């Protein structure tokens, strides 16, 4: 294999993982912007989506139905969690709430361990066929599903924020919570909406990636952390930043793993996180808003 086709291969697989990181990062950014919380349980939403889907497929549900049901289930679970664990601690400081989400993440993982055990589950790809060859690189159909789903979800998210009234209200809440309240926009309702929406994004990410990576009870931990790195890379408050951060992280990781050693794959992500936090805490793609006082 020539170097060029090898590089293309790394970029393609990087974009596949990067798309997943982008979706997870988007969840971090939406929740952080609306509530000020960094939700470390975001990765568990991904795991739950994949696990519910595996279970539903296991009992004989067709793939499309399993996808829809799993998304709804994860949204309900997260809605209950927001209601029970986050809202009841509304008066606590953001740091306390962040620690609550770490606790939630551990708890969800523990429950998943009890329910689904430690064995990895395999999920069949959504469509048969492939792999396809592009310029010396190969790509499996499921990767195309991942990239396509990511693109559609990102477009939907951006559409929601740019063109729908609810999206605008959510942004108003992100920009200026105080003024939003004065207009009658309820922060607690927006917080619930942000959590449930991020849950749906995470769950879908988990389902499309499942056929590529296997499904395990603890898959959310690493995906959540990577998504966090991507969000930080993008500045933690910008939605386009999260997307670019996710894709960039996926590609860098894949290139690093391919060109250096696959053992460094996770290390590279966290070195990037440390570098960003040391050198450019606002994020590489972080944009500073205009504000006149």
């Amino acid at each position, binding site marked *: 294999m020539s170097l060029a086709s090898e590089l293309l291969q790394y970029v393609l697989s990087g974009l596949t993982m990067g798309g997943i990181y982008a979706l997870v990062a988007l969840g971090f950014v939406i929740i952080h912007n609306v509530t000020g919380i960094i939700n470390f349980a975001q990765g568990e939403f991904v795991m739950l989506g994949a696990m519910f889907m595996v279970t539903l497929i296991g009992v004989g549900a067709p793939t499309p139905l399993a996808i829809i049901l799993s998304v709804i289930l994860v949204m309900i679970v997260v809605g209950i969690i927001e209601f029970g664990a986050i809202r009841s601690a509304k008066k606590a400081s953001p740091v306390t709430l962040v620690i609550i989400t770490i606790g939630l993440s551990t708890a969800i993982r523990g429950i998943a361990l009890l329910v689904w055990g430690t064995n990895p589950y395999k999920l069949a790809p959504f469509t048969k066929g492939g792999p396809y060859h592009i310029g010396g690189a190969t790509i499996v159909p499921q990767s195309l599903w991942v990239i396509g789903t990511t693109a559609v979800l990102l477009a939907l998210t951006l559409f929601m924020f740019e063109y729908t009234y609810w999206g*605008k209200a959510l*942004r108003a809440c992100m920009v200026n919570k105080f003024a939003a309240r004065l*207009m*009658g926009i309820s922060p607690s309702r927006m917080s619930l909406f942000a959590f449930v929406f991020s849950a749906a994004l995470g769950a879908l990410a988990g389902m499309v990636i499942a056929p590529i990576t296997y499904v395990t009870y603890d898959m959310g931990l690493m995906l959540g952390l990577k998504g966090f790195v991507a969000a930080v890379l993008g500045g933690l408050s910008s939605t386009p930043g999260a997307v670019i951060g996710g894709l960039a992280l996926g590609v860098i990781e894949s290139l690093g793993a391919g060109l250096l050693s696959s053992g460094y794959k996770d290390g590279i992500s966290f070195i990037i996180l440390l570098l960003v936090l040391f050198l450019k805490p606002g994020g590489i793609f972080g944009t500073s808003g205009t504000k*006149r006082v």
Partner: protein
Amino acid sequence: MLKVVQLDTYHGRIRVLKNISLHVEKGEIVTIVGANGAGKSTLLGTIAGVYKPKSGRIFLGTKQTSCLPAEKVVKDGIILVPERREVFDSLSVLDNLRLGAFHRYYTDKKTIEGDIEKILALFPPLAGREKQLAGTLSGGEQQMLAIGRGLMANPKVLLLDEPSLGLAPLVVKEIFEILLSLRKQGTTILMVEQNAKAALKVADRAYILERGVISHAGMARELLQDSRVQSAYLGARLHA
């Protein structure tokens, strides 16, 4: 229209408002003037549901308002245009106005675009700049947008917190003239101001707030002539 009865508000253990009673009649501009830290913003914030009063009641018409939280008080018909304007700076002028109507957006959808036209006619500097981001407007324009956004809620009473803050005298004049034309249309306004002179000139009646207590109340014109008020708030020297 708006009636506040024996209001007490605390920030932590500090009693900021002490037994405040006041009333605003329909179509009036009433101003509350006072020095920094007198409790002016706390008073408006309490009426708007941002702070919880320890005791006292607030009536709108004959109905007692919800008092808390702010997002419900809007529905009662009270809107606060906050100090420092607090526009949604990364959203467009048009979106800011639309979001002002949030509490009635789904019930009143048809009238909203028409209302936006009315607001733009009221604030000519905003017209034609609907797509511009609110954060890129000048201070005066942002203040106009903040008032316009407040009016979009179709309030029974408009609460203005320091509308002149940080603005050039000419802009202050422009904004206060708009307040007068709002009154002609029947809008009821309760306004807090440090710029006592400008406020007393446009207002019908005024209250003077000193360390959480209303020390004077009366017709704005009379207070403007009152020598004690002049020396304390209007910069006139008694023995000059």
